[in-house]
């Protein structure tokens, strides 16, 4: 049981701007003309397409199969026709393309058959596969497959439901908790069952009293250890590691997961999706998104995955002076390079910017080492030191000062009086380090390949030579056995090296040929004087020696 709350160091309190959309109930977004469903789910996984252009699909029908352990299934968000399967720009700061299934809705929203799962009587393995096949991923932004997180084999003590929603402007989780708390709690119970956790803790920032109230009503009367804890509103309280720290006091180091410490954390939206998948048989084909910022009608919408951003943005009616469009929150989100990209399972918010709401950044000045960044860093780093090292391309030192513990939350950039875009320097340094590591591993691989090739060639030569030697030895033995009257002089010596063996072989062959020749036809050298005979023998010997040298010269690379 939670005795009291813990603190994480640092954090900031930016203006939340949540009031703009927090009062707007979730509306079902209208069907767009086209849905562009990306098959790529993360840098780790891209689903395998199982539909063809022209094919009719039903809402919730599987169109992509998981291709790897970190992959989940992809479903048609509505009923309609597959128009094409084509590369299309994705919602990413790069604007790069990815393979997408383009579906033209028929407007009927006809569901595929939706069997439910009695998760309490099936094996956990089956339930996890169910989640994977229903496309359930973390909806907090990282879209990490839930079946992996829920599939941690035992040792989970506390299940944390993240409803902190600490980024300014975003209200989708707030609305979900207010309106669909029962579904969230049902999902939490399923996740508790799957992880074997002893207790469930909801962590919600205390600036969302209605959400806290709704969750408390939903858990009322439930047996078991389940609580709703208001946590102080302090960005980034919704960061997984920060929330775990606040609720349990456990600090999870970089590179470790909550599961290693007996804690597992899911977003409230994920819990809701788990409930829909298990208890209602619905795959994850939609999610709640906030449309806000410089718009006439900020609101929260249940949006089909694959809805183009421009259609979604239009729902909020952007004002005339709207500039860049941000996806995600203003602290960790990104600027969309184009608006025809589809919303994904990671999309929680669209923010229309204006020069008034998001003034252009003032010019960057020098760091004065004031330490304001260190005071707000939730990872307890010394951001200005990392800045100096990154700027000087002293990447070794940057790593030594724990560059990779940086979660890029942006607190340091937010408070810097010199307006230094600190996070950009860390992204640069991380990118450079990764690039160097890739280069190094590529070079290592090339060297390994080269060494392997050399070794293979040497081995092949050795094997060939051994084979020849063996053959020579056999021939010699045969020769020795058959011509007892003419014993080969070398036969007595065991071949010491492949060359000796070759020479012996050649000598033996010559012997044989000579013997045959002598037997077949008398040579003009038959009736010779002893002197002539000696000359002939000498010439034969020379010939044999030359043949041996030539054979040896055939293998110049040996040794």
């Amino acid at each position, binding site marked *: 049981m939670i005795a009291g709350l813990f603190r*994480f160091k640092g954090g*900031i309190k*930016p*203006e939340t701007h949540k009031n703009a959309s927090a009062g707007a109930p979730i509306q079902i977004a209208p069907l767009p003309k086209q849905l562009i469903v990306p098959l790529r789910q993360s840098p780790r996984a891209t689903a395998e397409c199982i539909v063809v252009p022209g094919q009719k699909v039903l809402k919730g029908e599987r169109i992509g199969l998981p291709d790897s352990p970190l992959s989940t299934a992809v479903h048609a968000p509505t009923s309609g026709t597959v128009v094409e399967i084509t590369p299309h720009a994705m919602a990413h*700061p790069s604007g790069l393309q990815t393979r997408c299934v383009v579906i033209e809705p028929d407007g009927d929203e006809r569901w595929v058959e939706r069997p439910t799962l009695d998760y309490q009587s099936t094996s956990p393995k089956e339930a996890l596969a169910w989640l994977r096949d229903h496309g359930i991923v973390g909806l907090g932004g990282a879209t990490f497959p839930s079946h992996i997180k829920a599939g941690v084999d035992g040792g989970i003590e506390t299940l944390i439901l993240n409803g902190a929603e600490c980024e*300014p402007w975003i209200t989708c989780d707030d609305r979900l908790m207010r309106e669909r708390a029962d579904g969230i709690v049902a999902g939490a119970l399923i996740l508790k069952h799957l992880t074997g956790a002893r207790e469930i803790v909801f962590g919600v920032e205390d600036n969302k009293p209605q959400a806290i109230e709704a969750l408390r009503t939903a858990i009322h009367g439930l047996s078991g250890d389940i609580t709703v804890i208001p946590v102080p509103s302090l960005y980034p309280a919704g960061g997984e*590691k920060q929330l775990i*720290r606040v609720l349990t006091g456990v*600090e*999870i*180091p*970089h590179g*470790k997961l909550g599961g290693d410490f007996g804690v597992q954390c899911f977003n409230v939206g994920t819990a809701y999706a788990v409930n829909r998948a298990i208890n209602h048989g619905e795959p994850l084909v939609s999610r709640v998104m906030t449309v806000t910022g410089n718009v006439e009608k900020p609101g929260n919408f249940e949006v089909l995955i694959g809805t183009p951003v421009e259609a979604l943005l239009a729902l909020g009616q952007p004002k005339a002076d709207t500039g*860049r469009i941000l996806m*995600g929150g*203003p*602290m*960790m*989100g*990104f*600027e969309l*390079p184009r608006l025809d990209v589809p919303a994904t399972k990671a999309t929680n918010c669209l923010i229309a*910017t204006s020069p008034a709401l*998001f003034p252009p*950044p*003032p*010019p960057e*000045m*020098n*760091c*004065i*080492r*004031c*330490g*304001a960044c*260190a*005071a707000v860093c*939730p*990872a*307890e*780093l*010394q951001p*200005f*030191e990392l800045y100096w090292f990154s700027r000087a391309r002293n990447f070794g030192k940057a790593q030594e*000062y*724990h560059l990779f*513990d940086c979660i*890029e939350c*942006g607190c340091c*950039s*937010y*408070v*810097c*009086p*010199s*307006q230094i*875009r600190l*996070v*950009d320097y860390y*992204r640069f340094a991380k990118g450079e380090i990764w690039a160097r590591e890739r280069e190094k591993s590529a070079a290592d691989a090339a060297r390994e390949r080269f060494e392997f090739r050399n070794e293979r060639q040497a081995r092949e030569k050795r094997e060939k030579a051994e084979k020849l030697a063996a053959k020579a030895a056999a021939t010699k033995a045969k020769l020795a056995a058959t011509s007892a009257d003419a014993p080969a002089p070398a036969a007595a010596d065991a071949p010491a090296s492949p060359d000796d063996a070759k020479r012996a072989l050649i000598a033996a062959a010559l012997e044989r040929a000579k013997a045959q020749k002598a037997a077949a036809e008398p040579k003009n050298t038959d009736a010779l004087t002893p002197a002539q005979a000696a000359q002939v023998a000498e010439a034969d010997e020379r010939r044999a020696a030359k043949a041996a040298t030539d054979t040896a010269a055939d293998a110049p690379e040996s040794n």
Partner: protein
Amino acid sequence: MLTSPFVRKPTSVQQVMFTVLIALLPAVALYVWQFGPGIVVNLIIATVSAVGAEAAVLKLRKKPVGLYVSDLSAVVTAWLIALTFPTILPAWILILATVLSIVAVKQLYGGLGQNPFNPAMAAYCLMIVAYPSAMSQWPAAGWMDLSTHLQLIGGASLDAITGATPLDALRTGLRSGTDVNGILAREAFGILGGRGWEWIGLGYLAGGLFLIQRRVITWHLPTAFLAGMVLMSGLFWIANPAHYASPLFHLASGGTLLAAFFIVTDPVSGATTPRGKLIFAASIALITYLIRNFGAYPDGIAFAVLLMNLCVPLIDMKTQPRVFGHKGD
């Protein structure tokens, strides 16, 4: 195209420096009340020469002049020089000091944020070595009118109205065989330290607390500096109260309070980690006390600060805090 975060706190270097200037105002007001308007003249002279020097070098370095001059960091340096230097010093020495601090100590190292030494203290050290007698001519306690002040800084020699600082008086008194209480009973001394100076010290204290409240500085540096000073002076005082002045005298004298809140707190040339700040400031106090009592100069803060500026990279490196999740490392 921009990257996250897209929002930032409305803050700037200019705002930080402006807050420091505001925090110096109570002390300046008390200075005027106790010693006359001369200090204001000096503040103006120092400000004009510092800003002029800064602008000239920025132009030579082809840097945006307006952007960097308006950050007010040169003004802060100028004010600290004016406040730490004797008020009746010839104006040309004051101008030389500010120009040197801006050009040689700050801009030649790369300008804002790049200087390894505290510019005001480096200027102080240079001047006290170069012009030792001018640098130890302090006005006698009491109000001085503007025309006298202008004559003095214009170079006129009016020996009659100069006096020694409390620390100077204590030093010469002790050398002549008088004990501490005898010296402190003299006219130049007030309740705690030098007459008039103790009021100004209170002004620095008030300004410093304001800076802590506004989070421009953290408690570490002033606390460690003052604690170090109390500890050192306390030990010697307990051992021999006739020969060593009390901790209160040391707190109220010389630049102790100014240094605690405005000098050792210079972020650019100081230590930055929490533990590093404690070591840095306490070491300055220790060295200052040693110089005050056993060195050749009446007040050693400037030398102590420069010495410890040299140690900052080492201190920072050896006092890196543990990062989140690495507590057990």
